[in-house]
């Protein structure tokens, strides 16, 4: 049992990295991520954290430096969001292909144009095909806990993939919540140092290059290997979540966090990030009215929790999916992937998808409850679904 402090989401991320004893930190500031790196810079300067802090002139350089440091075998941490994440985009894909277990905190912020500093998930979603494991946190405690857990998953010898921990800009990053900060010894017990040689370590006495050219006869094998590792990581995530709960007494869900998803639930709402916490309140409101509602927070977006979604949909009347992102010309990413997961099922629930909260527009529990009621109403009337109005 650690000490409870009032922490902003950003500081929770910094503490998560500090407790994970990261060895190299390299990042470029961007609103609303900046204070994550400021706190870590302070920790390095004061000697509280024995890590190398590399100052870079852009996010592209930050990811490049992170790749180099990780290739040498260091435990690396970086942070970005929005335009910054896009600026480092080629590095993001590269790091995953090079199988380097870098952990990055992404403070989700809407993408320009038009310009916005408020939150939505478009930035992270635009990297969904990069090969990074993607977690979405719903509160500051989860931010801290997830960073510690994610190093264990990413660095596993069978995984070796980088991971993003997403937190909603301003709603979590700049909002103060009570956070239980575990003791360093407890974290050391849970999270050992990075396993050596996973996947490789640069050594000037035995030089090598990595990320080499691969011709059409073998490139695909490297890529399928990444997909296999992603699928395997589902097991690692579940295992790590259980271990964390045994040690620290907290469980934020493995791939999904189910709230009141009873066997007789009529409707389940799927959402990511802070909307999921609002959704729990919405579920309580509806349950009080006698509606058997439940909420499933999509904690891990990559790898996508296909099996868990199929399991939850069994016997379910209706699904409401709320996406805080929009794939123009298609719809919300979570909704389209849930639909894809359910395609082969003989009996599928009625599915309504809504795109909400873009650019930081407020999504409250009352709104979610209203949308869930509307969804149930539509099931009866077999109405057509409109995603945005």
């Amino acid at each position, binding site marked *: 049992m650690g000490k409870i402090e009032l922490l902003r989401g950003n500081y929770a991320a910094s503490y998560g990295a500090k407790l994970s004893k990261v060895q190299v930190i390299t990042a470029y500031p961007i609103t609303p991520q900046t204070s994550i790196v400021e706190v870590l810079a302070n920790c390095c300067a004061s000697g509280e954290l024995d890590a190398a802090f590399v100052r870079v002139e852009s996010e592209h350089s930050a990811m490049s430096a992170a790749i180099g440091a990780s290739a040498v075998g260091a435990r690396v941490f970086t942070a970005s969001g929005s335009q910054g994440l896009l600026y480092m985009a080629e590095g993001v894909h590269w790091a995953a292909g090079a199988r380097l277990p870098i952990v990055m905190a992404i403070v989700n912020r809407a993408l320009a144009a038009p310009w916005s500093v408020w939150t939505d998930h478009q930035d992270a979603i635009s990297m969904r095909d990069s090969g990074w494991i993607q977690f979405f946190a719903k509160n500051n405690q989860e931010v801290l806990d997830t960073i510690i857990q994610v190093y264990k998953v990413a660095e596993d010898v069978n995984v070796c993939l980088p991971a993003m921990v997403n937190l909603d800009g301003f709603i979590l990053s700049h909002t103060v919540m009570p956070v239980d900060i575990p003791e360093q010894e407890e974290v050391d017990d849970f999270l050992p140092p990075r396993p050596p040689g996973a996947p490789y370590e640069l050594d000037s006495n035995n030089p090598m290059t990595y990320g080499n*050219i691969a011709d059409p006869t073998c490139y695909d094998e490297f890529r399928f290997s990444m997909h296999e*590792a992603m699928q395997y990581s589902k097991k690692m995530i579940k295992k790590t979540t259980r271990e964390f709960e045994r040690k620290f007494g907290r469980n934020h869900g493995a791939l999904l966090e189910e709230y009141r998803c009873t066997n007789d639930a009529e409707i389940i709402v799927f959402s990511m990030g802070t909307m999921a916490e609002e959704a729990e309140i919405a579920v309580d409101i509806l349950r009080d009215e006698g509606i058997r509602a439940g909420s499933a927070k999509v904690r891990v977006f990559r790898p996508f929790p296909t099996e868990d979604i199929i399991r939850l949909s069994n016997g379910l009347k209706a699904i409401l999916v709320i996406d805080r992102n929009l794939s123009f010309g298609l719809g919300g990413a979570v909704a389209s992937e849930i639909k894809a997961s359910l395609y082969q099922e003989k009996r599928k629930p009625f599915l309504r998808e809504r795109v909400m909260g873009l650019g930081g527009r407020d999504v409250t529990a009352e709104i979610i409850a209203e949308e869930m009621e509307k969804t149930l109403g539509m099931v009866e009337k077999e109405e057509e679904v409109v995603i945005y109005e």
Partner: protein
Amino acid sequence: MVRVLVATSRPKIGSAGKTGTWRFRRPVIDYEKCNACGYCWMFCPEAAIVFYEHMEKPEVNYDWCKGCGICSDVCPRDAITMKKERLKRRI
């Protein structure tokens, strides 16, 4: 057990063969003009100019020099000229 595949390679000496055979012109250093500033050595992209600490002036390693002409271009004393050259024998 999942196999983690990584695209890596280790260096092999001369894995492309002696690249000196690629040349059709060779740099010639006029040692009267050369003041051993080291620019040619510094800028050679192939490390084909050797200039160890014990050496007075830099020397071209014609086994590996590809004849790109950068050394000649950067020499502040114009001490390096590119002379036409053809391999008599095809390898």
